[in-house]
């Protein structure tokens, strides 16, 4: 079976990715899994300057999920290139930095700097972080801003541009169309949903910023419905994310119209999960005599 996934002018070796923010910069998981199961590593978000992240506590478990407010804590683009890229470039996976910023210029500056690194496969543009005051989701909820941002980035790179969409909008398909018009090669959806947990005894929210991003199996039906909708609104590949814990969960996304998937919170629960997800996809496709992932799209109109 052909597992490669075409995105822009390149191919991912297989449809499995690890979602930004759940896999650090790769080395953290070194002893815990076989990297050859992973087609792409979407790194922890990278911003122009280092960010310490949000106040604590930063996370709380919820029914079949978790709420986080990390606040894009990261080492900044310079240290990312100097300290993280050398390790990442030795891995057999496509290295896709997740690029974040508060202004258009910041996104541009991070991308320009990364263009100098030969080992980067493509970019995932984070216009959907719910946990920062400026930028992030503010970009991702306005189709005009999305199109302008993608246009500016498109002018500067020939590498695949994947736009990561927020589910915290009225119609995610509108945003996906804007990304496609700007020249995106794929969209990944969904980022986390805004959620809240209150400690009744203390009579306050558990997270100091009050809300956080909800992830995990709890959001899977929402992610799936959004991938279904987006994949019918655009002709570029859709990468499905949200609560994938096994091959069957990933297959739901692929059957809904996704070309590839990302495992997020599942990496925390079982660091070797990606291998199991890949195995599950392969055995189903063999049974159904699919020759490529796209074959799965014919079942659900």
């Amino acid at each position, binding site marked *: 079976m052909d597992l490669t996934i075409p995105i822009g002018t390149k191919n991912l070796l297989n449809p499995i990715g690890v979602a930004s923010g759940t896999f650090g910069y790769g080395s953290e998981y070194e002893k815990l899994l076989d990297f050859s199961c992973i087609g792409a590593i979407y790194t922890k978000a990278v911003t122009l300057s280092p960010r310490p992240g949000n106040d604590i506590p930063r*996370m709380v478990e919820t029914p079949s999920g978790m709420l986080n407010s990390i606040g894009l804590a990261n080492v900044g683009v310079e240290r990312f290139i100097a300290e993280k890229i050398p390790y990442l470039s030795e891995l057999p996976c496509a290295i896709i930095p997740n690029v974040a910023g508060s202004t258009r210029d910041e996104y541009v500056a991070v991308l320009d700097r990364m263009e100098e690194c030969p080992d980067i496969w493509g970019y995932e543009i984070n216009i959907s972080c719910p946990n920062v005051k400026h930028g992030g989701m503010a970009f991702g909820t306005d189709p005009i801003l999305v199109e302008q941002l993608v246009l500016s980035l498109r002018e500067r790179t020939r590498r695949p541009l994947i736009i990561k969409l927020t589910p915290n909008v009225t119609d995610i398909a509108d945003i996906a169309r804007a990304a496609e018009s700007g020249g995106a090669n794929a969209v990944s959806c969904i980022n986390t949903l805004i959620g809240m947990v209150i400690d009744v005894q203390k009579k306050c929210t558990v997270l100091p910023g009050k809300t956080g991003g909800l992830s995990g199996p709890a959001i899977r039906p929402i992610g799936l419905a959004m991938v279904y909708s987006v994949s019918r609104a655009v002709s570029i590949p859709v990468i499905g994310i949200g609560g994938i814990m096994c091959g069957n969960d990933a297959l739901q996304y692929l059957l809904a119209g996704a070309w590839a998937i990302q495992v997020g919170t599942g990496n925390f629960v079982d660091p070797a999960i990606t291998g199991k997800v890949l195995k599950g996809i392969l055995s189903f496709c063999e049974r159904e005599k699919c020759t490529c992932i796209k074959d799965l799209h014919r079942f659900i109109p």
Partner: protein
Amino acid sequence: MYEMQFVMEGAASQPLPGQFCTIRVSEETSPLLRRPFAFSNFDFKNRITSIIYKKCGPATEILAGKTSGDLIDVIGPLGNSFVGFKKGKKNVLVGGGTGFGPIFFWEQYLNTQNSPTLMVLGCRSKAQLPANAVAGSSGSVLCTEDGSAGFKGTVVDYLFSLKKDRLDDAVLFCCGPIPMLKACHEFALENGVECYVSIEQVMACGVGACMGCVIKIKGETPYARVCTEGPVFNSAAILWT
């Protein structure tokens, strides 16, 4: 209080005192995340290690229901340990609440090195002390807030009751609830002794990737990951609030 023993098979490296593991308690999606537990001893010959925990939610409830022979999904050893830090002429090991585990393990380790220890264990009343602590080793002091066993008062009350000369060149190693650790830190500051604390924090990945388990520290970088830079910190490096 529960103790779970398990065999570390194959290539797993031997745990050091202060290190922890994460356990996936079930295949279900709720509770979802792995839970961190500090090691409470290690039998080098049989490669048997253990954790001590309290039933305090659905995950520990499931864990307490496991029976002998069950397979459990454990990742570890993780984090730093007490071993890398400077030892004193006298090592005062302070444990409270669910913090007994790493303190027992550290005492066991220091005893093999013939390094002198004084172990101070505290909780609200005798019923909450683990059985092996009540049996007591000669170098240990029990403290109960209600006076039902040993010294009446908290572990910090006990530390303040010690004569100054017993603290000459002493180093404190502490594990327990944050207010206890903070009080130990303040005691150490007042008495001019070094103090190392093992911090408990909610974790998602346990391996340094998610940045979820951080605590506030002094210096240029405002946060440190408990799972990776810790769980053992010099108490003077922490920004206590």
